[in-house]
């Protein structure tokens, strides 16, 4: 479904990604693990179209999407929960969700909003509240809900666990399992390897802009290097 091929991305003279290749298959959940500054966010930004790579290709459902604007990529079936959530601060919870479904017909928006409220009941309680008055956890839920409103085929999630209380991290990750049951593919970019590996099928390890390791969840959980670096021994 998604294929990143030999991607090189640079900001001026500083190269952030080196020959990164990875793929996400239909109905699959994949994690990209790595420390701060490994290039995880750059990867997500390239896929969404915020950053133009120097070379390489990004293909979605068999076609290159490099020349597409971010909003055209959303139309193809991508959606993003960016680092920090980035909800629209001065819009209500409801308007944030409506904006998430910007390209969807009115009927789909109504249906999906009900689904989001089912997944995150607290958002329904706060539906008229302005987003900047929400707590960090609620904002993160809103950001995920907003991405779901786009009815994505592939959901890109950047550092969802950062700054969240452990109990909320568990809650959010359980939502990902639920999404997979609904047929959404997921590309999860995370520092939190422990929780991520519980919900994905495969993972890649990114270090200093290069993929250094990849494999199925079981393989990685058993790998001594991963255990040492990301799972606390």
């Amino acid at each position, binding site marked *: 479904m998604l294929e990143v091929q030999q991607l090189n991305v640079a900001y001026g003279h500083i190269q952030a990604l080196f020959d990164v290749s990875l793929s996400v298959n239909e109905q699959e959940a994949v994690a990209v693990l790595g420390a701060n500054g490994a290039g995880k966010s750059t990867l997500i930004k390239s896929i*969404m*179209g*915020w950053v133009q790579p120097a070379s390489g290709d990004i293909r979605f459902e068999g076609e290159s999407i490099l020349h597409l*604007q*971010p*909003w055209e990529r*959303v*139309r193809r079936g991508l*959606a*993003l929960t*960016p680092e920090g959530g*980035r909800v*629209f*601060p*001065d*819009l209500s919870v409801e*308007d944030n969700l*409506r*904006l*998430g479904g*910007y*390209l969807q017909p009115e009927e789909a928006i109504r249906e999906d909003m009900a689904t989001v409220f089912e997944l995150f009941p607290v958002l329904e309680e706060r539906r008229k509240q302005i987003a900047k008055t929400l707590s960090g956890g609620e904002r993160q839920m809103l950001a995920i809900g*907003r*991405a779901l*409103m*786009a009815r994505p085929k592939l959901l890109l999630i950047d550092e969802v666990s950062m700054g969240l209380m452990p109990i909320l991290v568990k809650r959010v990750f359980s939502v990902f399992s639920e999404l997979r049951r609904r047929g959404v593919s997921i590309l999860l970019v995370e520092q939190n390897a422990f929780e991520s590996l519980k919900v994905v099928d495969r993972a890649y390890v990114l270090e200093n802009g290069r993929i250094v390791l990849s494999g199925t969840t079981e393989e990685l959980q058993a790998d001594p290097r991963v255990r040492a670096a990301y799972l606390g021994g």
Partner: protein
Amino acid sequence: MSWMQNLSNAMVLAAIYILMASGLTMVYGVLKVLHIAHAAVYTVGAFAGVLIYTWVGNFWLALFLAMVISGLLGIVIYRGTYFYMLDSPRTVPLIASIGLYVMITDLLQKDFLMGPYQRAFPAQGAGLPRIETRFFTLTPKQVLILLVAVALMALLYVVLTKTRIGLGWRGAAQDREMAASVGVNLNRVISLNFFLGSALAGAAGVLVGVYNNSVFATMGDVVSYKAFIIIVLGGMGSLPGAVLASIILAVAENFLVATVGYVLPRDAIAFLVLIVFLMYRPHGLLGKE
């Protein structure tokens, strides 16, 4: 003059300020560009209005077409200049904008366009009545300005709050990148932004032309810096802030001119209001820190 009369005169002035400043603050909100050339759009609107009025004799048609022409000019300005400067430092579009303003007003002074003359715009009050009460009087021209401004601002409010593209616009004004990533076509939203804002500026030009019965190529000069006072007062990019600041500035101007007007000219008073205000609220009335 009674204070009620002063207040009603202030509201007429505020209506013009609101039409002018809302487009400017909308452009700043989405693009973070100080759109100096907005005042040139105002002049072009007035010029188009007077030409069409002289030609067909119907004020409402002239107003409508002048707004459409101004709106299209706004889109041309965006797609022809700022569009290529979105990733440059903010000084680049600012300088381009100053250049555009000078270029358009100079062009308008050419003989094949307006020439260096004033043109009369004798539309009067477009047939509207004079309103007289015990406390204040509104001339037909003043009624016209209030009516048009209120109707247009109500229309703008509906577009921005009740339509999908309006929601996209509000999202883009808060976080452009994120709005693009939920599917908002930024080119379309920003073009709409320029069309609406510029159409309002064109309407302001027509109304001021009618009010003073005069249209000339440099009529945007004073307006351009007045509109800047207003969007700074209101908080850069805030539409409600611009409306509020327009009213405050118009009221302050009118009352200060009526009381200490013999000391300072009107425009000096406007700047004095700005300076004093900014000492206490540096990010404006409704702006963010």
